[in-house]
């Protein structure tokens, strides 16, 4: 089966500073693919580069037949890639309903999609008129995911969705990721928590100094924890 998303030889810069060096990554249909690495390794930049928010200076990023590097950034979500940024980045002054509406607008989705997303995160249904900046951390994370799912994406990019959340909420987010996988959504997950990765991922790529050093099936990590130690420093 063809990959859902394929990243080949991507170079990416912040100003004149190179951050990604010939990055290679493949995302299979319906898999959860985790990116692990130390702080500053280039995980978040890899996601931003796929979204076109930081332009790729070389290489190719393909979503099926669509070459994403040729699209302006606002066309990437319309092609079917949704992004949940680190720190949620909600439109904090806008209501929950407005944040969801922004998600629906990108691909002209209707109320059926809105209802399906609210069914996945029912707590948001009770908060529709509340300013999103006043939600709890867990509710904000659910809204960030709901807003992205309003695009009915083929590929979902999640940047540290469990950061700063209490254990019960982490379990909820992890369950949502598993549900989406069951529905055929392919996910790239940037995560710091190795235990969370082992529970939800199918494959893991280790990023070091802007390069993918190794990609392994998650079962291999369970058998050989030293791989994680080598790239991340902890297990």
């Amino acid at each position: 089966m063809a990959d859902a998303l394929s990243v080949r030889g991507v170079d990416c810069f912040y100003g004149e500073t190179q951050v990604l060096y010939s990055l290679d990554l493949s995302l299979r249909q319906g898999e959860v693919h985790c990116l692990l690495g130390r702080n500053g390794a280039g995980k978040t930049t890899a996601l931003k580069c796929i979204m076109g928010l930081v332009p790729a200076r070389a290489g190719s990023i393909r979503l099926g037949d669509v070459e994403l590097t040729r699209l302006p950034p606002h066309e990437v979500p319309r092609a079917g890639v949704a992004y949940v940024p680190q720190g949620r980045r909600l439109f904090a002054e806008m209501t929950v309903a407005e944040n969801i509406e922004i998600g629906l607008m990108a691909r002209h989705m209707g109320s059926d999609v809105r209802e399906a997303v609210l069914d996945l995160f029912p707590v948001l249904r009770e908060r529709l008129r509340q300013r999103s900046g006043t939600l709890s951390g867990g509710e904000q994370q659910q809204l960030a995911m709901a807003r992205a799912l309003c695009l009915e994406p083929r590929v979902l990019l999640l940047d540290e969705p469990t950061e700063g959340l209490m254990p019960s909420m982490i379990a909820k987010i992890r369950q949502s990721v598993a549900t989406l996988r069951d529905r055929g959504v392919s996910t790239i997950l940037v995560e710091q928590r190795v235990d969370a990765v082992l529970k939800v991922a199918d494959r893991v790529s280790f990023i070091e100094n802007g390069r993918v050093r190794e990609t392994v099936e998650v079962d291999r990590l369970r058998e050989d924890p030293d791989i994680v130690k080598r790239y991340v420093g902890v297990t």
Partner: protein
Amino acid sequence: MAFGPHLILATLEGLVTSAVLALMALGLSLVFGVMRVVNVAHGEFYMLGAVLAWAIASAFGGHPSIGFLAALVISPLIVGGVALVADRLVLKRLDYNPEATIVATIGLLYILQQVALTFYGPEARPVQAPFTYRVSLPWFGYSGYKLAVIGASILLLLATWFVLSRTRIGMIMRATQYDSETAQAFGIPVGRVYTGVFAVGAMLAAVAAVLIVPISQAHYLMGRDPLLLSFIVVIIGGLGSLRGTVVAALLIGVSDGIISVFFSPTLAKIIATFVVAMVLVFRPQGLFGTAAR
């Protein structure tokens, strides 16, 4: 005139100033709020609106209201077009860099000013008010046109509030204002939003100018003072806040009217500048602005 009626007259004059100032400052506030561009040329869009109003009103014969109404429609459209071209040719190419766009809009200020001087000349020219009806109050008669200016400004401010808070385009503008990168990640074409906002900001200044030009006169240097007052209003009210802009415009306009009548216009400007300094020290985000995160 007794003190009471004198105060009412000063307040009415202040309200007219507030009405025009609110429209102009709203344009400046929108441009900064959404684009993070400090548009130093905003006063020249105001001047251009007034100069074009004179040209358009002069071109139409018949009753003054015909020329005025034509100016009220055509002048903001032309000014909006000029702003759109300036955005595409200059600001977009600078990638909306905050520092570079300050310098660029200073350049735009001089270009527009000198174009007006070349083609319009150094004279101050009046545009006839669309009607000359006077409202009889118990103490004095007052220009019906000036009251209409206040009414028109209120209508336009309400329309702007409605668009920003109740329509899809307003939601797109607010999303871009809060976080342009995330807005792009949700399919919002931020570049086009910027161009539209810059044009709308200039059009608001032009509308303010067309409304004021039957009261003052069109002149190629008329953009300077309103620009300064607009910055004062926007700083006090909070950048990007419609409510703050209206409240600050009322505060500055009415106090300017009253202090100018009872003391001197210079004292009014001194106090306004002092208030700005205090706001910058004690509440830099303005009365209704949100602190930067």
